[in-house]
């Protein structure tokens, strides 16, 4: 479904992503582990078309997307729930969800169904329907960001550190929900510093360090790997 070949991304003169290759198949639930500044966000923004790679190719559903604009990539069925959430703070929760469904704005029935689904997943969003997104708590904002990313009915969902800055109980809740989203059929690529959480729910993982993939494998093997345990699990 998603294939990166030797992708590199720069900021000015500094190379942030150095020749990353990876592949994600339909239905997969894959994690991207890496510490602060490893380049997870930069890699995700490159895949989503916000940044353009200076080398290599990105292929989504058999089509080369590395030169496409971000809005076209969304239309192909790839949705990024970004770091920092990027919600519309002065729009209501409901309007944020409606904007999430912008690419299928004429599909009124489908939108209604999706709203029902995300409200079932995160009941708080139903309660807070008319509240401005900017006035939600951090955890609620993260739920809204995930819900908004789901509203385009994506085939591949990229989640950039959904656990960041949240209390352990909320992290657990979000992890469960993300797992449920994958079980309902959405392919998920999850970036996390919280390797413990990510490796428990995903099937496979990549480890990113200084812009390169240094390791990959099934999550249950990574979780016992010495290098991973030292670097990311504090063991």
């Amino acid at each position, binding site marked *: 479904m998603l294939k990166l070949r030797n992708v590199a991304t720069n900021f000015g003169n500094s190379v942030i992503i150095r020749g990353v290759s990876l592949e994600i198949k339909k239905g997969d639930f894959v994690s991207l582990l890496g510490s602060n500044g490893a380049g997870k966000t930069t890699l995700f923004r490159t895949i*989503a*078309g*916000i940044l353009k790679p200076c080398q290599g190719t990105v292929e989504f559903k058999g089509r080369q997307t590395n030169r496409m*604009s*971000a*809005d076209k990539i*969304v*239309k192909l069925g790839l*949705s*990024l729930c*970004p770091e920092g*959430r*990027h*919600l*519309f*703070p*002065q*729009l209501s929760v409901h*309007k944020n969800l*409606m*904007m*999430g469904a*912008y*690419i299928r*704005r004429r599909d009124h029935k489908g939108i209604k169904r999706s709203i029902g689904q995300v409200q079932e997943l995160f009941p708080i969003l139903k309660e807070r329907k008319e509240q401005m997104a900017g006035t939600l708590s951090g955890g609620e904002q993260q739920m809204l960001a995930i819900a*908004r*990313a789901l*509203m*385009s009915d994506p085939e591949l969902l990229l989640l950039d550190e959904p656990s960041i800055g949240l209390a352990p109980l909320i992290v657990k809740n979000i992890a469960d929900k993300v797992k449920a989203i994958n079980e309902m059929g959405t392919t998920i690529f999850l970036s996390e510093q919280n390797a413990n959480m990510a490796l428990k729910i995903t099937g496979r993982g990549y480890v990113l360090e200084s812009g390169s993939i240094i390791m990959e494998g099934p999550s249950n093997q990574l979780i016992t790997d010495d290098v991973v345990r030292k670097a990311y699990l504090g063991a």
Partner: protein
Amino acid sequence: MELFLQQVFNGIMLGSTYAMVALGLTLVFGILHVPNFAHGNLYMLGAYVTFFLISLYQFGFWAAVISSMVILGVVGMLVERFVYRPLIGQPHINMFISAIGLLILLENSVAVVWGTSAKRIPHPYPDTVHLLGITTTQQRLIVIVAAVIMIILLQLFIKKTIHGTTIEAVAQDREGAQLVGINVNWVSSMTFAISSAFAAAAASLMAPIFMITPTMGALLVMKAFVIIILGGLGSMQGAILGGYILGLVESLGGGFISAAYKDVFAFGALVLILAIKPTGLFGKESN
């Protein structure tokens, strides 16, 4: 009392056009985060287009106003595409310089092509009307009604339709807008078209009442900036309310204290309001 009502009426009329011009300016500011100094010149160009459609091509008044809005809408899109879009991602000072360059270009082109002497559009509705004890012309009444209708329609478009809401979405979070699949360039283009068409409408409605000159936009754009700062940068309610406040302050100050100093009252109101509320009437606390 009668004089007072007369001045209030004139203030509302002025305020209606100020509100339209300020709304356009604030929409573009929200999208670009850079002030479009040339906005007043687009207003001026709108008045000239209407003038020539009426005097050279015998257009009816409303046909000319609507055509002028369409033409300026297209001009606005071209300005966005060729003056501002190439500078996105560069230091803000570049857009400032371009805006001022565009301002000078428009003002002088009009002066060269059509001359610097003031022109007046023949009054389409010269009849007087008596209303609540005041006497005014139909044209002045039309300015108010048309402006209110257009302002309401724009609000409905932005608040109630998905295409209109994309303008708010891009203004509030550009990257978030891209990530839900909004074509940000298209939204910028649309916003410029609306903004310029509103300026053209305001200018055309006022053209039979005041003279039109190539420099008519210069002071107006200053006032429009006063309004959007007074109303809170990027706030649409602020621009509307600010427009009417400024119109009233000018008209009442000009009528009762001194006509020569009416612009002083406008800028004085800005100083006063910002002293009390530094973020403007509807301004968000900076984050």
